[in-house]
């Protein structure tokens, strides 16, 4: 059974002239890391909101089609109870703090308390997540006194701790510097390794290419391409629809135009370096 199944999903926001999503079909397998890419206004955030159930229960409008999470139609579940099934992280770290926790420890505990998890288990899970997210040094700090990157890690940890099988993450690094971006992706990658299903919207294509099992290209509310990163980033339609390519793919294309025969499309600078070294007869593992 697919973890997330989107079927013929169309949505028009109340007071909008045109639909934000037009007949989207998408199937995400259990444990899959699926990235959604596309230009601004392509419908990425609306699709995330629809998968999490905020569309149309929170953002009003006209919706047709269905979204199921683990076989359960989310239209039949309240958005509060969906917190047990699916996590949601978005771009602004500041507004993702609960606003009532005095410390990072309490911030992480907030969601578990809402779900009625026994206090002893809350403490155990918070301690574990502080280590996993590498935020133990902030445990007694006020969440609002942290930097944007630190806050985003706390926001992500506050969601991951709730233990949902599926996580929807909408542009988590858009306000972060490169080092914080790497830390956030390392954490998301760890969740994928732990078997969680990840739905990610992201503009940093090198990270998308490195971490994703599947990439979905959206354009004007429709799915244009779906496939493994090498397939999607190797397709000319990706750039035609206003999406940037990972730097390694751009470099590889330039090399191919100059007659360098790269056997596979490298998705990261590390892969490209390895491929070029092999072509030059150097030890690629050095």
């Amino acid at each position: 059974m697919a973890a997330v199944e989107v079927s013929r999903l169309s949505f028009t926001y109340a007071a909008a002239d045109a639909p934000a999503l037009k007949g989207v079909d998408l199937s995400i397998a259990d444990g899959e890391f699926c990235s959604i890419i596309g230009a601004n206004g392509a419908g990425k955030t609306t699709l995330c909101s629809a998968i999490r159930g905020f569309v149309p229960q929170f953002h009003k409008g006209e919706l047709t089609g269905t979204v199921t999470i683990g076989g359960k139609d989310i239209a039949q579940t309240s958005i509060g109870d969906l917190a047990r099934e699916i996590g949601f992280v978005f771009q602004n770290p500041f507004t993702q703090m609960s606003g009532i926790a005095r410390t990072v420890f309490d911030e992480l505990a907030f969601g578990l308390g809402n779900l009625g998890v026994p206090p002893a288990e809350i403490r155990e899970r918070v301690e574990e997540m502080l280590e996993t997210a590498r935020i133990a040094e902030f445990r007694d700090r006020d969440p609002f006194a942290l930097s944007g990157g630190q806050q985003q890690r706390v926001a992500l940890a506050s969601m991951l701790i709730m233990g949902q099988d599926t996580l929807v993450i909408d542009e988590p690094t858009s306000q972060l510097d490169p080092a914080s971006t790497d830390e956030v992706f390392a954490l998301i990658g760890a969740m994928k390794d732990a078997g969680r299903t990840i739905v990610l919207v992201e503009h940093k294509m090198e990270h998308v290419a490195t971490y994703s099992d599947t990439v979905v290209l959206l354009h004007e509310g429709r799915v244009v391409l779906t496939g493994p990163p090498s397939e999607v980033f190797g397709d000319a339609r990706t750039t035609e629809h206003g999406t940037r390519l990972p730097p390694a793919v751009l470099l590889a294309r330039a090399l191919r135009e100059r007659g360098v025969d790269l056997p596979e499309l490298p998705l990261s600078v590390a892969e490209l370096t390895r491929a070029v070294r092999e072509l030059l007869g150097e030890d690629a593992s050095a």
Partner: protein
Amino acid sequence: MSATETIRSGNRVRDLNPATQVLGCLVLAVVALLFGLVSMAAVVVVCFVLAAAAGRFVAFVSTWAKTVLVLSLVIVALQTMFIPGEEVWWEWGPLSATGEGFRRGTLFASRIMGAATPLVLLVQLVDLRRLVLEMERRGISPKVTYVFVATVNIIPQMRDRMGVIMDAQRARGVETDANWWVRIKAFFPTIGPLIISSIVGVEEKAITLEARGFTATGPRTSLYSIQDTGVDRVLRVGAWVLLAVVVVGRVVLWLR
């Protein structure tokens, strides 16, 4: 350590149950309001003693002086200058200080001081987390307590955001630091973005709460608890008795 931590400060006054603290301060305020200057003075003295016993004397006096005392002095000064009367102390242009105005201002200010001093004390005594736990224990909806806590916490957050907006406006050439006229002109370019960003922030905060299971059905749990001791119960009964006595006493005095 037990999984549920009892929140304690180690001070007997501050560790009283928040319901006891709230009721005690409200009864003090009522006592000050129902009787004259003497009861007001007594209530203020009691508040100073309780603040000292709570280990909050300096913070209490500082807040009290900046708010209640200043407000009371302003009331006395304005009433003295603007209430007309026969007993004129001195005149300065259109202003005249009168004995009638001073007495009326003193009475009015004493009531303000009597009612507000216990509230300033309450702010010093009550721990917000403990108050929320007690409110929820008494059956108040977590949605109400969330709004209560978030409202208290939002003030420093909005002050920080205001600083960021002012920096952005300065970067665009809007003058924000100079005389009062310049500051008034800078008010609208800063307050507009603050309100709009706050509205957007409220929507995102609501999404955050939904994502964190705030409206999920079923019982909640907490890492913290508070005590409601025999001393608390005795003090609350005493406070209710005192309240009944002063209300009845006041009614009797009015009827005589």
